[in-house]
């Protein structure tokens, strides 16, 4: 019986300003999986991500992390629980006045690690994301892909069990995206970290996720294994997603994501 590491139960969120953004969201995330969450812009994906670690308090419902309801935790215990859930963002959100090494050290300073132990761990992580040569650089001098690698190293510093990725590749070009996705897959497979990937791009889900949930109109419209949901969409929302992503465009991106060009593929199948 696989462990359920993270659950949302009847999770709803309504901001003071308007309609509910999330309604009655029930998700069960299995330990070790790469779970995708897809939906149109404004569907409430980022809000859900922020509710999962209680950066945003749900209006009702709860989140269970390793079976513990987050709503029951005192602030100090909530801070501790958050350290078991790393998070990365579309805009990287690095500390601009700290070096690469300083950024990776940050969560360990927050957790009161001893300096020498923290530095050793930070160097190990920069090795993992292949940025050892940049430890003294400042984020402003790095490319988007490098910045996201720093953010991943930082999010992994306290050995979280879950990594939340909110549009982590949306600001990156296709090739850099591929590199980041490969890194995430590697982290999942080698370290057993459960990953939740939030995106509006089907290609991202197709390339690394095992299961996917479609968020539509503040509800979970459909949930299941990626292939099943994408090939046999049961709901209107899922169909719209699959169709709106034009087939030709998807084919092109699939080819690109495998490091090929259209000409190469055509010549391989003997058309040109």
């Amino acid at each position, binding site marked *: 019986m696989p462990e359920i590491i993270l659950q949302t139960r009847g999770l709803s969120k309504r901001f003071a300003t308007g309609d509910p953004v999330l309604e009655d969201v029930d998700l069960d995330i299995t330990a070790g999986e790469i779970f995708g969450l897809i939906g149109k812009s404004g569907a409430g994906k980022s809000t859900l991500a922020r509710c999962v670690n209680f950066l945003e308090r749900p209006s009702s419902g709860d989140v269970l992390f390793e079976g513990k309801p987050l709503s029951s935790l005192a602030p100090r215990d909530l801070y501790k629980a958050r350290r078991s859930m790393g998070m990365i*963002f579309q805009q990287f959100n690095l500390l*601009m006045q700290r070096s690469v090494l300083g950024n990776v050290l940050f969560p360990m300073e927050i957790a009161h690690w001893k300096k020498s132990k923290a530095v050793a761990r930070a160097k190990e992580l920069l090795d993992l994301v292949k940025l050892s040569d940049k430890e003294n650089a400042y984020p402003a001098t790095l490319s988007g892909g490098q910045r996201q690698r720093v953010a991943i190293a930082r999010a992994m510093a306290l050995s979280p069990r879950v990594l939340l990725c909110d549009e982590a590749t949306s600001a990156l070009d296709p090739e850099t995206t591929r590199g980041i996705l490969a890194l995430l897959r590697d982290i999942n497979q080698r370290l057993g970290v459960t990953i939740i990937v939030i995106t509006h791009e089907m290609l991202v889900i197709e390339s690394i996720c095992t299961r996917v949930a479609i968020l539509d109109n503040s509800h979970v419209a459909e949930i299941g294994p990626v292939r099943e949901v994408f090939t046999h969409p049961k709901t209107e929302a899922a169909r719209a997603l699959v169709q709106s992503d034009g087939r030709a465009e998807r084919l092109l991106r699939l080819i690109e994501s495998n490091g090929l060009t259209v000409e190469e593929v055509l010549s391989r199948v003997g058309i040109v």
Partner: protein
Amino acid sequence: MSGLYEMLIKGIKETLYMTLWSTALAYALGLPLGVILVATDRGGLRPMRGLNAALGIIINIARSIPFLILLIAVIPLTRAIVGRMVGSTATIVPLTLSAAPFIARLVESSLKEVDAGVVQAARSMGASPMQIICKVLLPEARPSLLLGAAIAITTILGYSAMAGIVGGGGLGDIAIRYGYYRYQRDTMLITVALLVLIVQAFQEVGARAAKRIDRRI
């Protein structure tokens, strides 16, 4: 001539003495107030509507009192703290009180420039509000805070010159006594030129330092 020279040197020393002490003390009051304004604001680290509104109003009132009136109004307080009501040391009290709320606003605006995403990232790592203030907001706002400090110090320097009216000492005192009361235009012009130079120097040094420590290229 050597009398004038010595007098000017003494004036510069007094001006710097008043300005630097007042700035330091005003930051001791204004910096925490600025942090509280940001932390208790809507969407801040610890939103507290009542406290935030009350503090905002008090700061606005304090800032709208003309300095000359404050200078005279706080004389009893000055006497209680310093033991005297005239002189450079006595002037530090009203200077500090009038600059602190201004500095609170400068600090507030610097801290609000810090990217909300970075604060969110720190929260996601389990940072407490206090840790976010000390390890994210203040360090990330450092260049902007330094620019603010250059503005604060030059403004306080300008106000310190006004203290000459109540015998506060410093270059402003000299300018008023010789230039205004005794019609020695040359002395007054030299004194004003010195004030301009000092303001320029502080502004320039502050701006350069802010640029040098900023890591956003």
